[in-house]
C-alpha cells in the first residue's frame, strides 16, 4: 500500500511535468516539420498541425527576417538594462540602508509599487509618459525619444526594485562595523564601500542581477505598449501569431530552450556536486573526531 502511494506521487508529478512541457515538446517536434507548401514551395508556419515530413530547413532559416534582429534586440535590452539596474539599485540599497526611518519607509514603499502594479498598468503608464514627452519635444522642434531608449528606460525601471529588494536583506545582515573598520584602517569612504561592503553583499547583488535579467528577458506586456517600431522577440512572436497572421518558426523554441536547459543543468549539477563534496568533508571531519 505504501509503495503504491509512493508511485502514485511520482505519477502525479510526472503528469504535471508533462502538462508543463507539452507545448514546448510540441514546438520542438514541429521544428523538424516541412512547412513548404504549394508548387512555389512557399514557407507557411500558420498550420502547426499537419505533418509533412522531416526536415532541418527550419533551423537554417530561424534567424532570417525579423526574428534574428528581434532576438538580438531582446538580448541587448536585457543585458544593458539589467547591468544599469544593478548599478543604480545597489547604490540605492546602500543609500536606503543608511537613511533615517521615515525617508527610508517612503522610498521602500514607493519602490514596491512597480512590483505590485500589474504589467499592464506599468506598460500603459510608460506609453503615456513617452507620448507626452515626445509631444512636448516635438512642439519644441527637438529630437524624439527613440524606441530603443524607451525600452531601455522601461526595463531599467521595472528591474531596479528587484535589485534593491535582493540587496537590502544582505546589507541588513552585514554589519555596519565592517564599513567603520575599513574607514579606521585608512580607506576612503569609496574604497571602504568598494573593498569591504560590496564583496560582502555580492551574493545579493548577483541574485538581483539575475532577477533583473529574467524580468527583462521574460517581459512582453511592457515592451508591447512601449515600443512602436522595433520589436523585441516576445512582441515579434505575439504580432506574428495573434489575429490569424503568418505564424512563427517553431525552431525558435528549440533555440531558446536548449541553452536555457543546458545553463540550468550546469548550475544545478554544480550545486549538487558541491553539496556532495560538503557532505563527504563533513563525514571525514566527524570520523577524525
Amino acid at each position, binding site marked *: 500500500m505504501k509503495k503504491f502511494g509512493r508511485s502514485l506521487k511520482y505519477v*502525479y*508529478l510526472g503528469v*504535471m*511535468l508533462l502538462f*508543463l512541457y*507539452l*507545448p*514546448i515538446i*510540441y514546438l520542438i517536434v*514541429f521544428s523538424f516539420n516541412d512547412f513548404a507548401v504549394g508548387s512555389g514551395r512557399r514557407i507557411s508556419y500558420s498550420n*502547426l*498541425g*499537419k505533418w509533412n515530413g522531416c526536415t532541418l530547413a527550419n533551423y537554417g532559416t530561424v534567424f532570417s527576417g525579423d526574428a534574428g534582429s528581434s532576438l538580438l534586440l531582446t538580448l541587448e535590452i536585457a543585458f544593458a538594462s539589467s547591468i544599469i539596474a544593478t548599478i543604480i539599485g545597489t*547604490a*540605492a540599497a*546602500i*543609500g*536606503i540602508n543608511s*537613511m533615517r526611518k521615515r525617508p527610508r519607509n517612503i*522610498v521602500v514603499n514607493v*519602490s514596491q*509599487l512597480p512590483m*505590485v*502594479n*500589474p*504589467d*499592464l*498598468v506599468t506598460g*500603459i*503608464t*510608460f*506609453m*503615456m*509618459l513617452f*507620448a507626452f514627452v515626445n509631444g512636448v519635444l516635438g512642439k519644441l522642434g527637438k529630437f524624439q525619444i527613440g524606441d530603443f531608449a524607451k525600452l531601455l*528606460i522601461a526595463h*531599467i*525601471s521595472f528591474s*531596479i526594485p528587484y535589485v*534593491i529588494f535582493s540587496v537590502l536583506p544582505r546589507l541588513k545582515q552585514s554589519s555596519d562595523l565592517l564599513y567603520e573598520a575599513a574607514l579606521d584602517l585608512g580607506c576612503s*569612504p569609496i574604497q571602504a*564601500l568598494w573593498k569591504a561592503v560590496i564583496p560582502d553583499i555580492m551574493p545579493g547583488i548577483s541574485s538581483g542581477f539575475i532577477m533583473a535579467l529574467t524580468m527583462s528577458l*521574460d517581459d*512582453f*506586456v511592457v515592451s508591447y*505598449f512601449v515600443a512602436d517600431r522595433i520589436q523585441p522577440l*516576445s512582441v515579434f*512572436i*505575439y504580432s506574428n*501569431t*495573434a489575429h490569424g497572421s503568418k505564424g*512563427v518558426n*517553431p525552431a*525558435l*523554441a528549440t533555440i*531558446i*530552450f536548449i541553452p*536555457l536547459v543546458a545553463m*540550468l543543468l550546469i548550475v*544545478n549539477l554544480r550545486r549538487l556536486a558541491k553539496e556532495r563534496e560538503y557532505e563527504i568533508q563533513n563525514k571525514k571531519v566527524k570520523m577524525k573526531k
Partner: protein
Amino acid sequence: MKRKYFAFPYIVWMVLFIVVPMVFIFYYAFNVDGTWTFRKCWETLSDGQKWRVLLLSVEIAFGTTAICLLLGYPIAYILSNMKKSVAGFISVLFFVPMWMNFVLRTYAWRAILEYALPSILGSKTTLTGTAGAVLMVLVYDFLPFMVMPLYNTLSKLDKSLLEASRDLGADGVKTFFRVVLPLSVPGIVSGITMVFVPAITAFTVPALIGNGNYNLYGNEIEQAFKVLAGKGDYSIGSTLSIILLICVLISTAIMNHFDNDKEGGSIL
C-alpha cells in the same frame, strides 16, 4: 561623503519613472482637452458592458487561482517531503518553463488545441475559443507561480512538528489539516496574490486562445489604448486602469490582512 547620497540617482529615477507615470493615469482619466471633468470618466463607468467583462475576468481569475492551488499544493507537498537533493532537481524542472517565453508557449497551446487534440479526438471542431480552453491555458501559465511560494514555505516547515503531532496521536490526515495546512498559509497567500492579479490582467491568452470570444478586462484596457491612443484619447483606458488598480489594492489588502491574522494566530 555620506552613504545615504548613494540613493540619490535612484530617487530621481523613481520620481521620474515610477511616480510621474502613475500621475498620468489620473491626469488622463479626469482631464479632457485641458479641462478637469468627470464627464468622460462617467461615460466609461456607465457602460454596463465594461462591468460585465470585469465580472467575467474576476470569475475566470478566481477559477484559475483555485485550480492552480488545487493542482499546485500536492506538487509542492510531495516535493517538500522528498530527499533534498532529488527535490531540488525536480523543483528546477517545474520552474524551467517560466524562463521560456510565455507568448511562445501560449502559441504552442493554440496549435495543440486547434489541430492536434481535435485530430486525436477525431472531432471536426477546434477547441480554441472556448472558456475552458482559456481557463486551462491560464492555469498552465500561472501554475509555477503557485508552486514556487508553496514549495518555499513547505520545505522550510519544521519536520519535528510533524513528529510531535504524530507522537500526540494524530494520524496523517489529521496532522495535515491541523498542522501542515495552517502553517503553510503564508505560502498559500503569496501564491494566490501571484496568480490572481496577473490572471485578471492577462490579455494575451484570451487573444490567442479565446479567438476574441472571451475578452477579459486586460483586453478591454489593451484595446482602449492600442486602438484609441492613435487619436490621443487615453481617458477610457485610464479610467479602466483606475478601476483595475482599485481591485488590485483591495485584493492585496485582503491578502495582507489574512496573512497577518494567521501569523498572529500561529504564535498563539
